């Protein structure tokens, strides 16, 4: 189809200002999403300066009217040279990974239970999973501050039961971060799992049982493989925000729970080192993009076979 006839078709069938329909949101996203990135990229190659903004220019017109581009790779060298940053990346991946796994272990049976509940109950339970999402994320994380405190109800309960003799240090530990992560992102895990399990044809399970499969085998050979897409989506939805999370480690984690989101924040706000913060952001972005592409490729390969 050539451009003229396409345009004619568009003029005919769509609102006459049809091209603006595309242009307005497109321009918005270009201006406020794509260009900001390019700026981050640019600043990640800049030198820090004592000014506002605290960076040296990258593109400079010299006196001979020649455009000079001053790229400094030192920020990336700094990021990869300092074990603190490497550790922050590793910690982020570990905490996000473990949290995702925990959320999956808890979320799968829950999603299963909801999907198989009597239809009247199903909507109510579904709503109960969604509801926390609508209440403030920050306040829900905050709730754990009280619960996990030295004199909080959890320690109180454990003391009362005689399981411990003095209050445990629960806050400001990785444990608290795991709790906060699973707690905050559990709904993201349950929703895709729920829709995958609900779609599952029950006849398949009955057929498998009819052909002599034991219940556990039915689960591992039929249910699990057929809900793989839901598992995939759920894990992605938990892992991605968890890797870059700031609030949870900042509130519940200890000083040594260094996650990358928190490091970027601190570099930016505390150290005012915009170039290093930008370099960290770029590395995090590449990491995430690589992960998403890898998963896509795995998925594509599975579909192909």
């Amino acid at each position: 189809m050539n451009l003229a006839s396409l345009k004619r078709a568009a003029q005919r069938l769509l609102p006459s200002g049809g091209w603006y329909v595309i242009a307005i949101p497109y321009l918005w996203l270009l201006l406020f999403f794509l260009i900001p990135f390019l700026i981050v990229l640019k600043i990640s190659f800049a030198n820090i300066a004592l000014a506002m903004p605290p960076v040296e220019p990258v593109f400079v017109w010299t006196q001979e009217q020649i455009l000079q581009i001053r790229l400094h790779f030192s920020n990336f060298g700094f990021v990869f040279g300092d074990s603190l940053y490497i550790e922050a990346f590793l910690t982020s991946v570990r905490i996000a990974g473990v949290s995702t796994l925990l959320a999956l272990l808890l979320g799968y049976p829950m999603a299963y239970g909801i999907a198989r509940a009597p239809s009247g109950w199903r909507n109510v339970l579904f709503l109960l999973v969604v509801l926390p999402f609508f209440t403030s994320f920050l306040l829900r994380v905050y709730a754990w501050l009280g619960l996990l405190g030295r004199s909080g109800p959890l320690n109180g309960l454990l003391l009362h039961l005689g399981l411990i003799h003095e209050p445990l240090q629960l806050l400001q530990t990785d444990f608290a971060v795991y709790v906060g992560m699973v707690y905050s992102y559990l709904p993201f895990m349950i929703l895709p799992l729920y829709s995958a399990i609900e779609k599952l044809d029950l006849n398949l399970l009955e057929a498998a049982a009819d052909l002599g499969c034991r219940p556990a085998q039915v689960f591992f050979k039929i249910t699990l493989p057929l809900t793989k897409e839901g598992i995939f989506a759920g894990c992605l939805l938990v892992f991605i925000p968890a890797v870059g999370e700031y609030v949870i480690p900042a509130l519940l984690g200890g000083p040594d729970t260094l996650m990358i989101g928190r490091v970027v924040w601190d570099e930016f706000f505390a150290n005012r080192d915009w170039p290093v913060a930008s370099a960290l952001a770029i590395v995090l972005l590449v990491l995430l993009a690589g992960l998403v592409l890898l998963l896509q490729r795995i998925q594509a390969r599975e579909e192909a076979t």
Partner: protein
Amino acid sequence: MNERRSLVVLSAMVFGFAFLYLPILAMMVYSFNASRLVTVWDSVNSPTIAWYRELFDNTALLDAARLSFQIATTNATGAVILGTLAAYALDRYRLFKGRGAFNVLTTAPMVLPEVITGLSLLLLFVALEQTVGWPRGRGAVTITIAHITFSMAYVIVIVKARLATVDRSIEEAALDLGARPWKVFAVITLPLIASAIASGWVLAFILSWDDLVITSFVSGPSSTTLPQLVFSKVRLGISPDINALATILVLLVTTCVASAGIYMVRAERRRLRDAQMAFEDGV
């Protein structure tokens, strides 16, 4: 279902829902606790509504809430307009150059860590101020722009999903009967996707109302939103008036969501009854 598995499922559900709701319930209960040491229950003077009273005397908090509400409303409206346009473009114009890039651009803000979005937008605003002199400083305007940028992605997903279910021939029928394209959009398409747009609005509102990280990057000294205020407070430890605030917000949201849920169940029942009626009427 076999016994062992149903036991696993049942205990996971009991534990899971307790896990989801006990912290919220505890927070609500402690909001009536007279003791300043939030987690120690003062059985003599409790329950008390002292913290609620304090909440409403706290002008800084009320101002922050008002600002957050303003930003969230503007953001939701802007995100819905832009998001609906984008969703419409993606659903209806199958063949335009840069469609793939557009698709990526619309979904990327959802998967991007908030620190990156916040950082990049701040750098943009600084660069813009330097080059074109706008926006002057950071505040409600920059926060709103930042919120629209990331929350419109969610609106796009919701509206696009609904548009995909709209039978195109309904719009063609309206064209065929003499309605001009913009009118078709206004009187046919828009009413058909209205509930998706409403959901998108609510979601965008909540995302903005809740956001801390992006806001912190792009806000200025004169603009403190509610999450920023809460965060600066809870960073120093627990504080009983925050419990009271959380209780109010949770109850508010629960009421809204529950009534929306009940309304939807009723509408579904009515629809089934109508269909039944048509069936019994025959031909």
